[in-house]
């Protein structure tokens, strides 16, 4: 029963757990002022976990372990690596945030949520899936409201908790109905049991709609996006970055597995609904972004729009489609972490995060401005950054599936995106501080920021130029679904 494959299938999770325990033990012995160094430990530990998993834990043929609870395949594995990378970057970005960097429990909560995400990516059973989603969410509720003295942060935490609980109740109800109709909770057996002919289409539609509410909340597609801007704005910035990247990607990991493995028959009849959702998500997300004056809210709304772009790949309902979604998410994780990282590094020094406060940044710190340029151009879909290739792949998949109209909607939205992203860069590069003395207001970067931002910026460029290996991995991951 307990073979080495069983162990290997949860190797990353085990390593994360070991790391968490290690931090739990070590942290109290650190002096209060040195406690930010837990960040180094977390990030280093996660990187080590990535390397160990890559060396020993690569999946072979897709196998079911733990009595079918967990699926050991490339789809899950690739997402796990992405999440752990995002977690490592976030831990480094935590360090010099005064409110959370000195507190060991922040890193523990981060790891706990990471553990949940890793399990989300590999869950092959509705029960396991629900547990994983809750394991991910609960630490994130706490992290969002971490700054107790800050009203906005408390509000963010509470709002996220309420909305999250509601959405997950819907999803759980959906799961229970699925179990009622099919008599099994295993995703890979649902295919057999949850047949189209044995079930009225409207019933199946209703059940899937309930599940979609829960997942839609996670990936923040319209109309389940309401929480995102408030939470992103209120939560500590590194947490917002983590929420908008890893948490969203985890939702997508579940979404593709669920739709392609458990309900393939219904997936085909669902695509039009998803296509419309995707179009609405892009459009609403972008139109709302246009009028934002706060950089975190801008990134929040734009992250809603990006969920819409990625959905095009799901709608395409093909292997290339899933590949492009995974590629999109990989590029998006790097890019958005970079964007939030730059915002963090800036507001740590200046204490403000309105867009107009970024005036003169290119003179205050040219390198930070360049990294911001890379992040925003990548978000806008410009080469040589990752966003361009990712978008083209998603559009390619969309056109292949015959959704030319959806691709046109995507294109119109990219244009809106270019407008507001460039608008921010206008403040960074063109406008000056009120008294034009940028020389006396430098924005220095501390070492963790410097390392993280440099790595992320290089990653964004690398994924946008040498895209073959990334595509290969995404393709290997997508292959396991077909």
């Amino acid at each position, binding site marked *: 029963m307990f073979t080495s494959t069983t162990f290997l299938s949860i190797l990353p999770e085990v390593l994360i757990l070991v790391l968490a325990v290690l931090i739990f033990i070590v942290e109290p012995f650190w002096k209060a002022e040195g406690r930010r160094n837990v960040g180094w430990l977390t990030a280093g530990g996660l990187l080590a976990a990535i390397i160990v998993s890559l060396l020993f834990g690569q999946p072979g043929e897709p196998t079911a372990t733990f009595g079918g609870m967990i699926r050991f395949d490339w789809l899950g594995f690739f997402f796990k690596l992405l999440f752990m990378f995002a977690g490592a970057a976030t831990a480094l970005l935590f360090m010099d945030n005064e409110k959370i960097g000195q507190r060991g429990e922040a890193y523990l909560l981060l790891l706990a949520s990471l553990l949940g995400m890793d399990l989300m990516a590999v869950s092959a059973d509705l029960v396991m899936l629900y547990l994983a989603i809750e394991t991910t969410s609960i630490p994130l509720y706490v992290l969002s409201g971490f700054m107790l003295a800050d009203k906005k942060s408390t509000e963010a935490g509470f709002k996220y908790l309420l909305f999250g609980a509601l959405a997950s109740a819907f999803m759980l109800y959906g799961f229970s109905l699925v179990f009622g109709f099919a008599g099994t909770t295993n995703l890979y057996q649902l295919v057999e049991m949850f047949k189209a002919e044995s079930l009225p289409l409207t019933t199946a539609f209703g059940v899937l709609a309930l599940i979609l509410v829960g997942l839609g909340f996670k990936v923040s597609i319209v109309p389940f996006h309401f929480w995102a801007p408030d939470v992103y704005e209120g939560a500590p910035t590194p947490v917002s970055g983590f929420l908008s990247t890893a948490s969203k990607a985890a939702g997508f990991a579940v979404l593709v597995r669920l739709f392609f493995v458990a309900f393939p028959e219904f997936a085909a009849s669902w695509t039009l609904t998803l296509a419309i959702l995707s179009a609405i998500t892009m459009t609403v997300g972008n139109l709302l972004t246009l009028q934002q004056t706060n950089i975190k809210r801008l990134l929040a709304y734009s992250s809603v729009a990006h969920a819409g772009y990625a959905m095009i790949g799901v709608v395409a309902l093909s292997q290339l489609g899933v590949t492009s979604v995974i590629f999109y998410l990989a590029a998006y994780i790097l890019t958005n972490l970079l964007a939030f990282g730059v915002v963090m590094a800036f507001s740590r020094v200046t204490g403000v995060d309105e867009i107009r406060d970024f005036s003169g940044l290119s003179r205050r710190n040219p390198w930070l401005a360049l990294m911001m340029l890379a992040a925003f151009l990548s978000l806008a879909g*410009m080469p040589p950054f990752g966003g361009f290739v990712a978008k*083209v792949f998603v559009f390619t998949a969309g056109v292949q599936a015959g959704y030319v109209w959806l691709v046109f909607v995507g294109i119109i939205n*990219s244009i809106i995106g*270019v407008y507001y992203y*460039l608008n921010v860069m*206008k403040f960074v590069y063109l406008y000056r501080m009120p008294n034009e003395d940028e020389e006396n207001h430098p924005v220095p970067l501390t070492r963790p920021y410097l390392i993280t931002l440099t790595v992320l910026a290089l990653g964004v460029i690398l994924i946008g130029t040498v895209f073959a290996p990334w595509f290969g991995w995404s393709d290997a991951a997508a292959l396991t679904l077909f």
Partner: protein
Amino acid sequence: MNFPVLSAITFTPMVAALIILMMPSHRRNETRAVALASATFALLLSLWVYFSYDQSLGGYQFVEKYNWLPALGISLHFGVDGMSAPLVLLTGVVMFTGVLISWGDEDPHVKAGIQDRPREFFAFLFLLAGGVFGVFVSLDLFMLFFFYEIAVFPMYLLIAIWGWVVTREYAAMKLTLYLFVGSVVSLVGVLVMYWTQYKNTGILSFDMLVMENAGFSQALQIAWFLPVFLGFAVLGGIWPFHNWSPDGHVAAPTAVSMFHAGVLMKLGAFAALRVGIMLLPEGAKYWSWLIMTFAGIAVVYGAYIAFVQTDMKYMIGFSSVSHMGLVMLGLSTLNRDGLTGAGVQMFSHGVMTALFFAVTGMIYDRAHTRMIPELGGMMKIMPFAGVGFIIGGLVSMGMPGFSGFVAEFPIFMGVWQKQWLVAVIASISIVITAAYIMTNIRKVFFAELPEKLHGHVGDITVLDKIAIVTLCILMIGLGLFPGLMVPMVQTGVENILRLLGGA
């Protein structure tokens, strides 16, 4: 010949951009020196490509191919033919002269060239140049888009940061959005072509040489020709979508105007030819009347609007619309003469308009005005610039002995064969062009120097003079020895005619 010269040309500016960014920002002259050195290197490489292109063989030469993403058929496939080799040379020349005139003069009374953050300026400019080279040499559609977008977005920063204070934000955003809309519309068309090819032949490839044989149905070609062609032609300044271009020209700093009018607009025309006409020939035949109408209107309308401008830069901006209209007119004929003319006109206009913008920039930097009525007597102050402008003007009018004649004559011949009426109407533009160029020369260079400008307007720098001489030599050289370019362009045209079915 194993040296990957086309990759070297494409990546030289990009590597230079990185090196320049790494330099400390206060080493301004060192930054400029690195910029000039790499621009010279790129110019030498492009000269080498141009002169070692074997005209007797024709076809694509210096071909390099690296599989970039075999799963989707994306490759880094470079090669030049008779159409693109002159444009590569043009880019090298404009890059070189652009750096020369951006060096400027640190004297606070003159403040010519780029004095604010030259490091960032040259880095963005070179990124742009790399993108332009990339488009001209790419034989892979994916990479073509990749480089195309790289050539577009630095424009925004270059214009918004270093442009003319009054209109720069508006113009930069307008330009970027126009070009981005155009390119993504083309992208959808290309993706449709890509999947149709897969359906027809079972080959997944973005390679244009493969796509030539994809066997697109006539219905598909007719349906998608306009989005693809016009999407690119927006950057070529085609008539109903030309609006961004004069605004962009005016707002841009001098070197960027040179790049913009001299090279970027060719990028649009070239990509429209490569992707629109060469891959969708049936569509091109079907719609050629529409393109010809648009182009005909652009030629006359652009010239007329240029005639009534009082701002020198707007005048040249609209003259670019007019001259690029001639290029489009040549393309729309789809016959040997018209296409040859269009190919040469792209080069000729590029050099000419770069010169115009360079001289205008020099005058503006020193006189602080570009309004024609407020200027005068520049011939005495900066004779070099004056002579250069006059030579450019003669080219613009299509005077024999200059490159403009070599380019425009075949275009009109080609149009005449197709539709004589259009040729007659378009030729009106020559008269109007002559009128506004002559008026401008008389007023700006030969009239009395206005009181206001007495004393504080000085001559141009040595580097400016080198730039002007370089550009003039090219225009006169091509005018006197058309054999230097015309046969080469013709080899490229033969290939296009083959795709068009020997029309």
